[in-house]
């Protein structure tokens, strides 16, 4: 346990400055985008009123109504997409820097006393801690954005809407609900473990065999999923809730399989 905490602490320390820089950059862009959307809306409104000699209400109608908070935070979905992309890249980088970085830290890691699973768990924990941090910062940013929106835009030009538009997946992030948060973290855990499996497979076999093994593992996820869907479409033996249960059970079994495989590769197959 001590080794796990020490390794996790070291991993977080190694990437913290970069993480903080990216996070700061995303928050600045998000807050700036809210200010830009509000000011841009007001400027369009004023232009319309001047050029077309319209009243404010007529101009608002021409602009398809008041500016919703969803419109004001329109750019958030791109920032979240960038955040997800950085997380996936980091899941690759957290391993490859140890192999290809200036120092070959992977030698030290693999030779440390104790079980190698600790290395895997510490890297997994580090990425998840960064995901949690990203989610927390997003929550704070959305609250600040709400205040900015209310402060910059006159009340009669504001409109109630979902937090960031109609995307159910993105809105899930901002529900501040324990179950939704748990689902997002579980999804992140699944994706990160998949990336770790790809890296460890690539580090364990020669190029051709590695590609085939990765393709086989991806097929093991996709093919049963498609087959189940086809089966459920053809027959009506299960109600939707039961179908969801079957899908979740399958994902859980697959997650156990990829986790076991990561540990096996790290213990017996990776080479440097």
């Amino acid at each position, binding site marked *: 346990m001590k080794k796990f905490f020490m390794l996790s602490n070291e991993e977080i320390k190694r990437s913290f400055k970069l993480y903080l820089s990216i996070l700061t950059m995303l928050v600045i862009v998000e807050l700036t985008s809210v200010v830009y959307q509000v000011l841009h809306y007001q400027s369009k409104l004023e232009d319309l009123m001047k050029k077309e000699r319209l009243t404010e209400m007529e101009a608002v109608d021409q602009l398809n109504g008041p500016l919703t908070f969803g419109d004001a935070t329109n750019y958030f979905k791109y920032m979240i997409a960038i955040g997800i992309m950085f997380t996936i890249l980091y899941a690759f980088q957290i391993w490859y820097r140890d192999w290809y970085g*200036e120092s070959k830290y992977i*030698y030290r890691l693999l030779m440390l*006393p104790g079980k190698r699973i600790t290395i895997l768990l510490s890297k997994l924990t580090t990425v998840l801690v960064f995901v949690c941090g990203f989610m927390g910062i997003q929550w704070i940013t959305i609250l600040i954005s709400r205040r900015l929106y209310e402060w910059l835009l006159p009340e009669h030009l504001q409109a109630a809407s979902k937090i960031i538009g109609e995307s159910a997946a993105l809105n899930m992030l901002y529900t501040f609900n324990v179950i939704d948060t748990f689902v997002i973290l579980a999804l992140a855990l699944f994706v990160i473990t998949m990336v770790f499996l790809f890296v460890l497979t690539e580090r364990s076999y020669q190029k051709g065999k590695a590609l085939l093994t990765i393709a086989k593992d991806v097929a093991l996820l996709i093919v049963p999923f498609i087959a189940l869907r086809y089966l459920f479409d053809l027959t009506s033996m299960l109600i939707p809730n039961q179908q969801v249960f079957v899908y979740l059970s399958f994902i859980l079994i697959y997650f156990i399989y990829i986790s076991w495989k990561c540990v096996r590769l790290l213990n017996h197959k990776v080479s440097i």
Partner: protein
Amino acid sequence: MLEVRGLRKSYGRKKNVLNDVSFTVPLNQLTCLIGLNGEGKSTILKAIMGLVPVDAGTIKVDGKTIHDSIAFVPDLSTMPGYMSVGEAIAYMRDYYPDWNQQVAEELMGFFKLMATDRIANLSKGNKAKVNLLIGFAMNRPYLLLDEPLAGIDLFTKEQIAWIFSSHYMEGKGILMTTHEIAEVEHLIDRVIFLQNGTIIQEDDSEEMRELYGKSVQDRMREVYQT
């Protein structure tokens, strides 16, 4: 005694890197693994440490399958560049219960390394010194050294060679790979010649000199030129 038995390693079906490699490394001796580039010397050291999987073979220390009695000093920097020398030592001390802080401090003084120097800013020679310091301070009976003298200046080579003849070697079994045989010839107790992943000769260095009337380096030249 460190015993390597029947080590086999191949990449795919075609390339055999190690073919049934067997040898022993006794305590209190410096065994030198000699071969040209790409003969499998580093692969043997990595295989002993479990850093590359092998197709067959066993590695035992005093009859037991354990790595806890072996320290490995690779020929490249293995501590993160952002760490200082002092932090790298503290890092290793935290993980290794047998860590010998006194040896670490003595060698830091001997090598004139500063605790505050960042690993990333060190020269190749100083990185080699840090590696060696870590290897000795791990306080394990067997030490594997991969090209400890490669690419470093004359004075650093002399410092490292001094270590090999000093009290730090007492009670240790050393397995070393090197191309700089002339620098350490007088210190080598046993020699293993490796060619195409196969051991072609294994001898006591003194006996080899007597038998062939040549130095280890000249004998090596003869073996690999024919």
